[in-house]
């Protein structure tokens, strides 16, 4: 039933995988250029490669992919003659679409982790891989994927509110993700600062930088000026993106099913 959706997911994964593999290969080549990285790490005071760091770093992969996948539903308006004339309720079509997208993001994340681990092995760093901080895994796993889902849900929702502008919305969303953290750290008046901080709760990069393995448990980033990027506990930080993701996806799915094809 989800034939078109699955083909689209396969296509997205092939693109993502190819680009990511190319980047990973480039990184491995650059890192091993000046002698063995493994021997450099072995000589360091703390010769460890924490697995949690790899896990958190890999979370950026599905976030990147989420932005691109999220315009898919909006693009379906352009193929309504095929997509909407299947003998299936439109809400069900949208739900299946989102389900396939979520599965695709999960596969992309696992793939990213796998490639990162492969890179570790190729660089001879496998002996230094450690599960130190393994307790953080319980929090990091749902946080990392939840943040990607939140980003997917938010972009889908905005494309449903402003239909027919999917690509522009994705472009603008990256501007938002990259600049809002910086603005939140700037010395604006208190009220504006609070607004900017609040906006960061919708920003995936804020969560990953806030709750990365090196900072997890410290609750918030203390910048140079002592500003706080995200307030609240690590548990709250995990719950917020999941809540936003679920609400955004549900609303967007309903909107898609009820919306008219733009003229």
């Amino acid at each position, binding site marked *: *039933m989800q*034939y*078109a959706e699955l*083909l*689209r997911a396969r*296509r997205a994964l092939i693109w993502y995988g190819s680009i990511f593999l190319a980047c990973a290969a480039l990184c491995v080549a650059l890192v091993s250029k000046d002698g063995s990285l493994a021997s450099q790490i072995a000589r360091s005071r703390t010769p460890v490669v924490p697995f949690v760091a790899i896990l958190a770093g890999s979370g950026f992969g599905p976030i990147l992919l989420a932005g691109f996948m999220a315009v898919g539903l909006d693009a379906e308006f*352009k*193929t*309504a*003659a*095929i997509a*909407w*004339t*299947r*003998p*299936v*309720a*439109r809400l069900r079509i949208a739900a299946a679409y989102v389900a396939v997208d979520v599965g695709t993001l999960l596969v992309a994340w696992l793939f990213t982790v796998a490639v990162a681990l492969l890179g570790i092995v190729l660089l001879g760093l496998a002996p230094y891989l450690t599960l130190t901080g393994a307790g953080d895994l319980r929090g990091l796993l749902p946080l990392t994927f939840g943040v990607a889902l939140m980003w997917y849900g938010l972009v889908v929702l905005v494309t449903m509110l402003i239909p027919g502008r999917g690509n522009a919305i994705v472009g603008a969303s990256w501007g938002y993700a990259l600049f809002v953290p910086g603005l939140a750290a700037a010395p604006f008046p208190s009220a504006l600062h609070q607004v900017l901080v609040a906006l960061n709760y919708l920003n995936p990069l804020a969560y990953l930088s806030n709750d990365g393995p090196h900072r997890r448990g410290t609750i918030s980033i203390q910048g140079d000026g002592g500003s706080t990027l995200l307030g609240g506990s690590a548990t709250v930080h995990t719950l917020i993106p999941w809540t936003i993701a679920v609400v955004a996806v549900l609303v967007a799915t309903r909107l898609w099913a009820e919306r*008219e*094809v733009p*003229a």
Partner: protein
Amino acid sequence: MIAISGLTKRYRGVVAVDDLSLEIPSGSVCGLLGRNGAGKTTAFKCLLGFARPDAGTMLFDGEPLRPQVFEKLGYVPERPQLYGWMTVGEHLELIRRSHPKYDAARANQLIDIFRLERRKKAKRLSKGQQTALSLIVVLAANPSLLILDEPASGLDPVMQRAVLDLLIDAATSGATILLSSHQIGQIERAADRVAILRDGRLVLSGEIDDLRAASRIVEATFETAIPELGELPGVSRVERAGTTVRVFADGRAGAVASRLGELGGNGVRITDRTLEDIFLDAVADGDSP
């Protein structure tokens, strides 16, 4: 059978379709005609659930539009709406998986007729080929109700003929077809009835033969200038070109012919109206002769 009653659709206060009522019996091909912006595509969108009508009901073989209706209802849009990144074969597979009445043999036959390559991506097809693929994915699902918005646009004359033949075949097999086209010759060839929209309103509808019979053309040529014709009974329109006059008479063509003869007209003859004449008459802005 497709039954439309009181269909009205407004966009930001502008009435795109105004109280449209139309009934297309089973096995009939109805040509929907109108100038650009007359409301044809909007009416189609409402029928398919792509746009929400402000008023009116639409029934397909007695059923209101619901997902299951699409098992027997096919739609070919004005511009092909295909997945550019999918191949021809993948489009057919999509239809096979989603439409229970998919006919693989028919799909293969249509692929051969239009000479499409299964492995070619839709975005690599020419516009005409994309139009053909849009038609193939619909016809392969064996629909008994068809809505086609300019289905032959972008096709070469040979392919246009093939498309019309397919539609006529489908209607002969009992399919109900609602078809719009700016090429009146296509409608004339394929349709047995016609509905004409002007500014969103239905201004004329009926069987083409009946519409032709209801009004005829009296044509005459004068030696010098065309004289003042005076009051002619039952005349809807008069066209003058040089010394030739064409009078569109509603039912009293004989009387009009006699009058033109009395005025010195040569070679006075009465001819049937073409569908183009009927259309132009219907969409004229009411300017009198």
